[in-house]
C-alpha cells in the first residue's frame, strides 16, 4: 500500500554516523559489582522506597512504589542485597545527587514469583495500574509514564496510534537494533496499545536509512496479518523522530503551538516502549533493562542490553573508551546532555552513551552577535522564530519568550546547528525554561503562603471574636441576680442577637451563627438529672437553690457598695 506522506518544515541533515554501532548485534552486558538505581527516573512524583539497607531483593522485585498516579514504579534488575538507600550522583547535567537504591548483586539472579495478570480479561484501568507498577515509561527519552498516555480520553477513541521508530539523531541506533531483533513483540505491544486507545490504525514510522529494521517490521506485520497495522518508511531528515514532526509526516496533522497531538486524535509511543508494554503484560516482566547505544570515541561501538542502574563507567569499559575522550554525553550529539561523571548510572532515559573527543566534536567556535539572517527560523522544525526566542531569553525577558512559544521548542538543536554566528541557542532556551519553571514554583509557594497567612489572620480574628462573645454571654447571664442598675448596663442576649445581623462580614455572620447554634445546643442539653425527682430529692434541691440565692444576694449587696467600677467592667467585656 502506498501511503501519501507529508513533510515538516525545517530540519537538518547531519552526518548520521550510525554504521559503526550496527555492525554487531545487541550484546547483553554482564552485571556490574554494584547497581545504583535512582528512584526518580521519570516525569512525575518520586517513588517511595520500599527497601532499606540490608534487605535482600529478588530480580523483578519492586523497590520503589509509584507516588500518586503521575509516577511509576522502580524494580531490582537482579537478586542481591541492598547496601544503601542514599543520594548518589545522577546522570544529569546538574551534577547533583538524588535518592538511589544501591544493590550488590549476588550472582544468582533469583526471580521474584510473578503475580499472574490476565490482561485480556482486565479492565483498561487495571491494565494501566499494572503498567504503572511495572515501571513502564516512554523510552524515547522523555520518560513520561506510559500508563497515563494509554487511555482513550474523553472522546472515547483515538484515530491514530503512531509508533515512533524514526530514531533520527546521529550515532543512536538502539531502536534500530531493537526493531531488527524484536519486531514481532514490538508490533504485539502496539496492538495492545491500539486496543487500549481504541485507535483506528497503527502507523509505525521508520526512517529510510534503516532498511533492515523496516524489513523486519514488515515481515512481522505480515505474520500478524493485522490490516490496521502499517509500517511506513519516512525520509531521513533530522528531527523526523520528534513526536509532532513524525505525526505530521505520517498523517499530515499539524499540531498547533501549545496544543497536544491527543487533541487531534493521535497518540505517539516509541518502539522500545511498545516492547516494554508487551513484556509487562504478556510476561509480567517489569522494566529493568534497556538497550543503550555506546558510540563515539570508543574502540568497539555497539548496542548493549544493560541492567538499569549499571554505572556508566562500567558500560564504557566494555566498549573500550579511548584515552583522548574529553566529555561523556548521555543522548546524541544534538540533544544530549553532558554527564557529570562515570559513577552515574544508566537510567530508563539513557538511549545512548556518547564519548566525545576534540577530534570528533571540535570545540565550538566563538559566539558572535546575531545578524538576524533567519537561518535558524528556516531550520526550526517546530515553526518557531529561534532568534526572537534567543533575544528574549538572553535579555531575561521570559514573558516575551513565552509569547514566542518557548515551550514548543523541542531543543532539537537545528537552529544552533545552522547558525552562522555559532550561538549556542539551545543553551539559552534551556536556561530560560528552567528560570520560568523556577519562577512558577516560587509563585506557587508564594500563593500558598499568602493563603496560609490570611487563614491564620482570619483564625486569630475569629478567636478574638469568639472570646468577646463568650465574655459578653457570661456577663449577660450574670445580671439576673444582680441589682437593677448592674443588669441594665450589661447587654441582654437579645441585644447581642439583634446586633449580629448588622455585621456585614460574611465570616463574622458565620461565626455568629455557629455561636447561636452552640448556645441553643447548650440550652437544649439542660441538666437531665433534675427531672423525675422524688419529693425528698426535690426538697434537697430547693434547699440548695435557696442557699445559692442567699449567697448571690449577699454578693450583690456587697457589689452595690462598690458599684461604679463594675458596670464599666461589664461593658468592656461586651465590647471586646
Amino acid at each position, binding site marked *: 500500500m502506498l501511503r501519501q506522506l507529508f513533510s515538516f518544515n525545517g530540519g537538518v541533515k547531519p552526518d548520521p554516523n550510525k554504521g559503526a554501532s550496527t555492525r554487531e548485534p545487541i550484546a547483553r552486558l554482564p552485571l556490574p559489582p554494584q547497581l545504583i538505581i535512582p528512584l526518580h527516573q521519570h516525569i512525575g512524583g518520586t517513588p517511595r522506597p520500599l527497601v532499606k539497607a540490608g534487605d535482600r531483593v529478588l530480580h523483578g522485585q519492586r523497590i520503589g512504589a509509584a507516588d500518586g498516579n503521575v509516577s511509576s514504579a522502580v524494580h531490582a534488575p537482579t537478586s542481591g542485597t541492598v547496601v544503601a538507600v542514599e543520594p548518589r550522583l545522577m546522570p*544529569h547535567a546538574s551534577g*547533583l545527587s538524588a535518592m538511589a537504591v544501591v544493590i550488590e548483586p549476588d550472582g544468582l539472579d533469583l526471580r521474584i514469583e510473578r503475580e499472574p495478570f490476565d490482561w485480556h480479561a482486565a479492565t483498561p484501568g487495571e491494565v494501566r495500574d499494572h503498567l504503572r507498577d511495572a515501571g513502564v515509561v516512554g523510552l524515547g527519552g522523555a520518560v513520561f509514564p506510559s500508563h497515563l498516555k494509554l487511555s482513550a480520553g474523553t472522546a472515547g477513541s483515538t484515530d491514530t496510534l503512531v509508533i515512533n521508530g524514526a530514531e533520527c539523531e546521529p550515532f543512536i541506533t538502539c531502536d534500530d537494533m531493537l526493531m531488527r531483533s524484536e519486531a514481532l513483540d514490538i508490533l504485539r505491544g502496539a496492538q495492545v496499545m491500539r486496543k487500549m486507545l481504541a485507535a483506528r490504525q497503527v502507523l509505525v514510522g521508520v526512517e529510510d536509512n534503516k532498511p533492515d529494521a523496516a524489513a523486519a517490521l514488515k515481515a512481522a506485520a505480515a505474520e500478524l496479518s493485522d490490516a490496521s497495522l502499517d509500517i511506513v518508511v519516512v525520509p531521513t531528515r533530522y528531527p523526523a523522530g520528534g513526536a509532532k514532526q513524525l505525526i505530521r509526516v505520517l498523517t499530515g496533522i499539524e499540531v498547533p503551538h501549545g496544543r497536544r497531538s491527543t487533541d487531534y486524535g493521535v497518540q505517539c509511543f516509541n518502539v522500545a516502549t511498545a516492547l516494554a508494554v508487551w513484556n509487562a503484560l504478556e510476561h509480567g516482566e517489569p522494566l529493568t533493562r534497556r538497550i543503550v547505544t555506546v558510540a563515539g570515541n570508543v574502540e568497539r561501538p555497539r548496542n548493549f542490553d544493560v541492567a538499569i542502574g549499571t554505572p556508566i563507567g562500567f558500560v564504557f569499559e566494555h566498549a573500550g573508551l579511548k584515552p583522548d575522550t574529553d566529555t561523556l554525553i548521555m543522548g546524541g550529539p544534538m540533544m544530549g546532555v553532558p554527564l557529570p561523571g562515570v559513577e552515574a548510572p544508566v537510567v530508563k532515559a539513557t538511549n545512548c552513551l556518547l564519548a566525545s573527543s576534540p577530534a570528533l566534536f571540535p570545540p565550538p567556535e566563538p559566539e558572535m552577535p546575531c545578524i538576524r539572517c533567519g537561518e535558524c527560523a528556516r531550520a526550526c522544525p517546530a515553526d518557531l522564530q529561534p532568534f526572537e526566542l534567543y533575544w528574549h531569553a538572553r535579555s531575561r525577558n521570559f514573558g516575551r519568550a513565552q509569547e514566542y512559544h518557548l515551550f514548543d521548542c523541542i531543543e532539537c538543536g537545528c537552529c544552533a546547528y545552522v547558525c552562522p554566528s555559532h550561538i549556542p541557542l539551545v*543553551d539559552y532556551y534551556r*536556561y530560560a525554561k528552567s528560570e520560568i519553571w523556577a519562577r512558577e514554583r516560587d509563585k506557587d509557594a*508564594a500563593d500558598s503562603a499568602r493563603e496560609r497567612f490570611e487563614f*491564620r489572620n482570619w483564625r486569630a480574628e475569629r478567636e478574638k471574636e469568639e472570646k468577646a462573645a463568650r465574655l459578653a454571654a457570661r456577663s449577660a447571664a450574670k445580671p439576673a441576680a444582680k441589682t437593677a442598675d448592674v443588669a441594665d448596663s450589661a447587654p441582654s442576649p437579645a441585644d447581642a442577637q439583634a446586633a449580629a445581623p448588622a455585621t456585614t462580614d460574611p465570616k463574622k455572620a458565620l461565626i455568629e451563627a455557629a455561636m447561636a447554634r452552640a448556645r441553643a445546643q447548650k440550652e437544649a442539653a439542660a441538666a437531665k438529672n433534675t427531672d423525675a425527682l422524688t419529693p425528698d430529692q426535690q426538697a434537697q434541691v430547693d434547699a440548695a437553690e435557696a442557699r445559692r440565692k442567699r449567697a448571690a444576694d449577699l454578693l450583690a449587696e456587697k457589689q452595690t457598695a462598690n458599684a461604679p467600677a463594675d458596670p464599666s467592667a461589664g461593658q468592656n467585656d461586651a465590647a471586646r
Partner: protein
Amino acid sequence: MISALLVMLGLALALGAALGAASVLFRTQGDPLVDKIDAILPQTQCGQCGYPGCKPYATAIAGGDADINQCPPGGDEGVRKLADLLGREYKPLNAEHGVEKPKSVAVIDEATCIGCTLCIQACPVDAIVGAAKQMHTIVADLCTGCELCVAPCPADCIAMVPVADTVDTWKWRYPVFDLKPVMHAPAKEAA
C-alpha cells in the same frame, strides 16, 4: 434646535444611566493595585519591610506611605518588578531593611526542643506542628524562611538552613559568562 437639544439630553441621560449601572455591576472588590503589588511580593511574611506582612506593605506602597525597595526576600528582581508595575524609577534595596539571602528553611533540633509552643505562635504561615510539652517540627514545604520563629525560641534550637538545589529544581546557567577585567583593575578597588 429643540430636537437637537432633546437628542443631546436623551443621549446624556442614557449614557449616564449606562455608566451608573456599570459602576454598580462591575464594582471591584478591594483595591486592585494593592492586589497587584501583593502578587509581586514574595509572601515570606517576615516583616523586614517594617509592616506586619506582605499585604500591609502592599497597602502602604499603594497608599504612597512606603518605598518600593524595602523587601529583602523579594530582592533586586522584586524591586524591578514593582518599579515596572508602578512606573517608578528602580532603586537598589534599602540596606536598612536587610539584605537578600538565599532561600532557607527553619529546622528544629528536635532533641533540644522543650515544647514551649512559642515558635508556633510566631510562625505566620502555620508551618510548625507540635503541642505543649511535645517535640515540635517544621514542615519544610510550608516554611517561607521568614526567621520569625528563631528569636522567640528559649532553647535556641531553631536553625535556618539554606535550601539546596535538587535535580528537579536545578537551573541551567546563563550561557554568557561575564569576563572580568584583570589587567587594569584599579588598585583602590582591589584593596
